[in-house]
């Protein structure tokens, strides 16, 4: 390597210099900002109407954010009874606690054990069993539903994905074949087709006229969908862990299972972390699709709102809100994941 390239901070970073092209582009950007900025600010903030009961209450020429404020409860939790919203908050906290270990480099190992928290969350929202009044899943909705499906499916999909990855790496033809078939079929199919299947085909497989709840069917299908993608990420991680790690753990006297769970798996998950995170971000964005089969997530609630006569024609405001909501979360997650990746890679070198 030459001296010149050796003293550059990183071989990837292009040299930073402000040339004529830069100044021209900057001038163009400035002109654009001056041209578009003020009308945009006026529309979105100064001339906007924040509260009101219908579109008629909104000033012309400004954004009508009243569509969001007047339906805020629906946007947050769908048609969940207003005086029981604390249960939704409890469930959301449980779900977040379930995935919290992922936010610590050393917490990855206990991540697959978070499934019980998902169950507690489900019980808190569902109620029943004489303790809390039952709230049928028809009432669940809004952004809570996106959170529930995104986090809930991930919590259950990780253990399942690990099993599938092990199955795919197995030397047993039967186990390997079954895992491979499941992974490839699920990964080859569009989520929307699987959602249709959950909504129309799944009831046919239920014995004795029993029909499992639509939300539960969706959750199960999305869990399998996510598990197939996670399995591929975990498989990559498992294959990257040197064999010596497992052998050394065995030589130190650990049992087979303990050597795998305590030594091999954590390292594999650590390597697979960026891929797992990408797949989670993808899944979280995909949760906006469930409105297609009639579940009222935040997209569904807002689409209902804009087709309501009182709020007709406010697509811009509604979609800007959903886009910004998901953008801020997904962008934050991907930034954080990139930081974690850098930290983990320096850990490994050190």
């Amino acid at each position, binding site marked *: 390597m030459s001296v010149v390239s050796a003293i550059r901070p990183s071989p990837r970073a*292009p040299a930073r210099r402000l040339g004529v092209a830069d100044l021209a582009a900057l001038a163009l950007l400035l002109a654009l900002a001056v041209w578009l900025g003020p009308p945009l600010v006026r529309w979105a903030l100064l001339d906007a109407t924040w509260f009101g009961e219908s579109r008629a209450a909104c000033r012309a020429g400004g954004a009508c954010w009243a569509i969001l404020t007047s339906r805020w409860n629906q946007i947050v939790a769908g048609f969940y009874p207003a005086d029981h919203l604390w249960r939704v908050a409890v469930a959301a906290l449980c779900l977040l606690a379930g995935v919290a270990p992922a936010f610590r480099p050393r917490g990855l190992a206990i991540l697959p054990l978070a499934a019980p928290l998902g169950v507690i969350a489900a019980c808190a929202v569902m109620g029943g069993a004489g303790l809390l009044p039952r709230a049928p899943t028809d009432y669940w909705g809004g952004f809570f539903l996106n959170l529930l499906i995104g986090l809930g499916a991930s919590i259950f999909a990780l253990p399942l994905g690990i099993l599938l990855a092990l199955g795919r790496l197995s030397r047993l033809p039967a186990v390997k074949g079954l895992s491979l078939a499941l992974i490839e079929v699920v990964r080859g199919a569009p989520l929307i087709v699987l959602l249709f299947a959950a909504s129309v085909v799944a009831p046919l497989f239920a014995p004795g006229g029993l029909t499992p709840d639509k939300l539960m069917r969706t959750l199960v299908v999305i869990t399998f969908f996510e598990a197939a993608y996670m399995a591929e990420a975990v498989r990559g991680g498992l294959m990257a862990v040197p064999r010596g790690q497992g*052998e050394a753990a065995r030589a130190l006297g650990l049992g087979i299972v303990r050597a795998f769970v305590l030594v091999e798996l954590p390292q594999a998950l650590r390597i697979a972390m960026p891929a797992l995170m990408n797949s989670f971000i993808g899944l979280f964005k995909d949760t906006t699709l469930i409105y297609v089969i009639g579940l009222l997530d935040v997209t569904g609630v807002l689409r209902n709102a804009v087709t309501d006569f009182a709020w007709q024609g406010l697509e811009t405001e509604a979609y800007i809100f959903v886009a910004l909501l998901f953008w801020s979360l997904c962008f934050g997650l991907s930034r954080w994941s990139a930081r974690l990746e850098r930290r983990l890679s320096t850990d490994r070198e050190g």
Partner: protein
Amino acid sequence: MWRTFRSRVMQPGVLAQAAGMGCVAALLLWAAHTVTANLQARGMASGFDFLGRPAGFDIAFSLIPYGPTDTHARVFAVGALNTLAVAAAGVVLATILGVLAGVARRSQTVVVRALAAAYVEAARNTPLPIQLLVVYALVTAAPPPRAALALGGLGFVSNRGLYLPAPVWAWPAPVVAALCLACVLVTAWAVRRGARRGAGGRPLRLVAAGALAVLLVLAAAFEGVSLPRPQGFGFEGGLEVGPPLLALLAALSLYTGAYIAEVVRGGLAAVGRGQAEAAQALGLTPLQALTLVVFPQALRVMVPPLVSQYLNLLKNSSLAVVVGYPDLVATFGGTTLNQTGQAIETLGLVLVFYVTVSLALSAAVNAWAARQNRWARP
């Protein structure tokens, strides 16, 4: 012998395997039994007889002749072709967009880099269904045909969609396409044959000859250009891209383009910077260094993730349901399902279509990667 979890637990005897398979088989049998019982209880039909029956509904957009009296099997063909068409067009547009944005992300100009980064981060971190709904709302908010935006006298944008000039062929379009494809295939065969003979051959000359043949075919078949012109409440002539197709195509290209930009950026980063520097030291311009030296090397790293993005685009094209473009899922997996009620059969066939295309493309790219690796090692 490494006696770890994977080797020990994962390798019990044949007996255990057989028992496991037996359990799976029993489960499947039980499921089949439940389904038949349920279908009988609801008085629902099963089997694939419905494929031969007339569909009885119209499809707004079709590449092959189709009418309501055609069969459900024909609906499947129309839907599959529509899916493949939008996916193919989307792949081309997304690749152009992605390569431009990916190269721009490595530009020396800070502002260009920032703009490309802004595009990639905005498109990657918002849900595709929302992007689709936004683009669709934008298209339908365009002025009506009478006040359509004219694109330099060649095309129009209105809330009825996009109207572009279209070539008029003297022969049927499938014939033209088949002839062009034949020229390409013969050229590819000749190039490969030359390469296998070891002499190296003159691939550039062969490719030039192939391109000339394609041009000749097109020139022979070319009859003129049909320009769209306002007529009544719409337009006449030219190529019509309706709002659903336009919105789907635009959203798919924007979304996948951002992912492709990341693939391109990674591929370019994988090529040592010395390559570009050496090329420029030899007197190539930066653009020549990029297109002749860096890009061909980056391509080897880029192709597998690129194909996986193409497959994602194909799968995402099923979001056509959201804007009402009649793709396979919307027609066969939607209307046919609703009319016949045979959910297992229709969704099963749709699933088979997607999985077949996915597996075929992944197999092709795996074979390609294996060959590349073989050649990479001298």
